[in-house]
């Protein structure tokens, strides 16, 4: 009998020993070699540093923009003068169609044009190609992150890609849809030329516009109330003469639950009427307004358009999966369930961290007043926190809040489609500002700083004082021993780079390698073989000792029966 116990114990201890032996020798840390990463330049190399400087083009004063990816100054000149009032040389530098922005007729004789025609096309980004296994035209919101998207784009001239050899989108074709700026009293025509393969429309949310126009018909943009869907290849004019100023919103109202999320929405600002008020009609890519309106300059030193958006990866993936418009329509209209959707990408001015550092920094100096116009075009409420600052909410949805009742906050909750105008004052008094620094500005919902679940990403950016800016226009962080280069790699957002490996010399929180000796697979098969052995042993034992077992069983049964018998 003893030997049986011995065998059983042996098998038991052997089985535990395998596990015990493995845990005695834990795998070594594998440190990812930086050279194995595709590290991008912090600043986009295609953008000329000369664009950062304050300059004058076509008589248009363009403010300095010290960030590393400022707007093309030619865009600003064209937006201020109109593409019809600039030299061919400047126009050729913009890539805009010569009829993209037409400004004519000073109707009230106050020195600025009052008839404004803005032509918008609809462009697809990161859509499937039937010709090669890739996307076209590509637009990265963060390193390696290319969500399928649609945008309103200023009417362009020529190709949709940078050039013939590239699949990267023409710089005019980008997220977000451009910010539109017009004046109270301007006769504005937004001409939508539907270059996309789906029907679309424009709804002017918050903008004073007539429900229908004598010449152009219904123009609320809603296919259930005011007009038919604008089909591919068709053109429609939306005309208005706004009586009230404010930060407003325009977006497609066809299948809004998908079209808005795909990117078909932008900010539209109605500026107060002032003499000689030549406005920057388009702020392509949003961000700093390098030629602010007269009314804004009366009160502020700087102005920024901050467009927050969110996108669902699964929705954008539909145009990456199919080329046939019918299949895309089927998946979007009949199969995609917005109630089951989750937002994966959070963007500020069309980009996620770290690209937000390139062009959506709020670059300030002490004792400035900065106007921030905020729009949330995502599907959920956001809560934007300004580190180091309390700002004053001056306007809700374009309407001025009673100046006596205006409040200061450091978290700004913005409902979907809502606009807030903030007055940020960089007065170092412990309330308005705590002093100079590289202060984060981010959506305080934790997921707001992620990109498809990977932090740090999302819509976070910085309010950065000029003294904290390095030569190339990025926040100066190296003096704290900070290295942001890992964020400028696609491997990071693929979840393949253990960011904490660099916190100490021996990478205590680096990536563990595989077990030494046996591979997990070999270990598994060994364990299976061992189970087989045990089972065999068990069967053998039962077979060999069947007589004893039988006797034992009989004895047990009789023992169980005997008490009954004795009772009788």
């Amino acid at each position, binding site marked *: 009998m003893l030997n049986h116990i011995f065998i059983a114990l042996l098998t038991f201890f052997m089985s535990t020993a395998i596990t015990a032996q493995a845990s005695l020798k834990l795998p070594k840390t594998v440190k990812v070699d930086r050279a194995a990463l595709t590290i991008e330049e912090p600043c986009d190399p295609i953008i000329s540093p000369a664009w950062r400087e304050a300059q004058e083009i076509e008589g248009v004063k363009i403010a300095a923009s010290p960030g590393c990816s400022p707007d093309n100054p030619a865009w600003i000149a064209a937006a201020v003068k109109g593409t019809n009032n600039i030299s061919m040389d400047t126009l050729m530098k913009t890539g805009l169609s010569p009829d993209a922005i037409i400004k004519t007729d000073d109707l009230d004789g106050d020195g600025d044009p009052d008839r404004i025609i803005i032509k918008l096309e609809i462009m697809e980004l990161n*859509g499937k190609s039937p010709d090669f296994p890739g996307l076209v035209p590509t637009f990265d919101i963060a390193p390696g992150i290319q969500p399928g998207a649609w945008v309103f784009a200023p009417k362009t001239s020529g190709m949709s890609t940078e050039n013939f050899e590239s699949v990267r989108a023409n710089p005019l074709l980008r997220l977000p849809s451009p910010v539109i700026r017009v004046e109270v009293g301007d006769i504005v025509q937004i001409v939508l030329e539907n270059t996309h393969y789906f029907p679309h429309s424009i709804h002017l949310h918050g903008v004073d516009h007539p429900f229908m126009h004598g010449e152009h018909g219904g123009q609320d943009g809603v296919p259930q109330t005011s007009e038919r869907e604008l089909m591919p290849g068709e053109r429609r004019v939306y005309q208005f003469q706004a009586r009230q100023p404010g930060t407003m919103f325009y977006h497609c109202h066809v299948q809004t639950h998908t079209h808005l999320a795909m990117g078909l929405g932008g900010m539209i600002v109605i500026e107060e009427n002032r003499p000689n008020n030549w406005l920057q009609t388009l702020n392509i890519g949003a961000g700093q307004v390098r030629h602010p309106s007269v009314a804004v300059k009366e009160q502020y030193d700087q102005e920024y358009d901050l467009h927050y958006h969110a996108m669902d990866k699964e929705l954008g993936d539909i145009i990456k999966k199919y080329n046939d418009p019918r299949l895309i329509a089927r998946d979007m209209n009949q199969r995609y369930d917005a109630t089951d959707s989750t937002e994966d990408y959070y963007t500020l001015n069309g980009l996620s961290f770290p690209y937000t550092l390139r062009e959506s920094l709020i670059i300030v100096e002490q004792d400035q007043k900065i106007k921030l116009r905020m729009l949330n075009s995502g599907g959920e409420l956001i809560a934007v926190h300004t580190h180091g600052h309390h700002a004053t909410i001056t306007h809700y949805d374009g309407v001025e809040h009673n100046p006596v009742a205006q409040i200061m906050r450091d978290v700004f909750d913005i409902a979907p489609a809502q606009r807030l105008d903030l007055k940020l004052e960089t007065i170092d008094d412990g309330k308005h500002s705590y002093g100079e620094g590289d202060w984060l500005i981010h959506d305080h919902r934790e997921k707001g700083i992620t990109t498809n679940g990977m932090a740090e990403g999302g819509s976070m950016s910085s309010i950065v004082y000029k003294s904290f800016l390095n030569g190339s226009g990025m926040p100066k962080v190296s003096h704290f021993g900070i290295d942001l280069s890992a964020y400028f790699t696609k491997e990071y957002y693929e979840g393949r780079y253990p960011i904490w490996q660099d916190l100490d010399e021996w990478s205590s929180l680096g990536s563990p390698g595989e077990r030494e000796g046996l591979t997990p697979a070999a270990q598994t098969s060994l364990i299976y073989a061992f189970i087989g052995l045990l089972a065999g042993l068990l069967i053998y034992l039962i077979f060999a000792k069947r007589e004893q077992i039988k006797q034992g069983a009989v004895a047990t049964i009789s023992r169980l029966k005997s008490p009954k018998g004795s009772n009788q």
Partner: protein
Amino acid sequence: MTKTTTLTFLIAGIFTLSTSVLAQQQTESSEQDHAQHDHSGHDMSHDAHDHSGHDMSQDSGAAIDHSQMDHSDHEHDHDVDHSTHDTHAMDHGDMHHHHHMDHDHIMDHEGTMIMGQNLDTLPSSCRSISEEVEITVRAGRKYSAKFPGTAFAFDQQEWRVKPCAKVTFHFMNEDNIRHQFMMHGLPKYLYKYGMFHLEVTGPKTVSGTIIVPGGDDTYLVHCDISHHMEKGMKAQLVVGNGGTDIPGIPGLTPYNINDTYEAENLPTLSDKAEQSKMVRQITQFTNDNLQTYGMMLIGLLLGLFCIPLIRKIPLRRNKENKS
């Protein structure tokens, strides 16, 4: 007793093992989940783009004989037809009409563009112009109607010319948006980027002329506005016997990468017929039943009515018997 202990130990041993195996499997599968994250699509090889790949055989040795060309008819007849254009929405009034002109780039105030036009320079592979042809190309959404799964198209998907032909294209855009007639793969010493490009916002026509090279080749023609080519606006110009076909031309050549299609659960007329058939069956069933029950009721009534009669018969017999 000893046997039971042995068994218990054995079972315990197997149990611990199997749990550790199970745990192992779980960790493995979660690792796999990580690896399955979709990272594809980011690494595109630009070479795969079907734009390139037209190897031009340029006969550098052959001298270009300029004397053979007739310099008299070099009038740039890129007549832009303004008459059909809908100026309703935009009254240009007295605005500057700036026309951009340099050697190979002509653009008017509405963005109508002619790029890479060549009216007079013979390609090195040609001794003379073989033929002068005019081709009208119509572009618009309506031409996509005959190609399911497309959104825009040219009216024709292929044009054929002789090598060394002087070809004038009249590009008629019939939509109210921009379209392009862009040709690629032309000799780069004659055409900037090897491109010839017409662009116009419709409804409007723009014309431009090229002289095609002397070799047999097939040239890609497309509209480069985002996803116009992908969604059908793609064709080819075949010179002489042509070269390799361009993929993905509607009705002509298959796509390189195809979508997958599946049966849809769509409502159909036969569904409706089936449905009404079922309704009919149900009503028929009730009707049948009504008839059956009706007949039964009649039978019952008849039966009841007959009872006294039936009863009388045996009674009589009894009476007869008694009597």
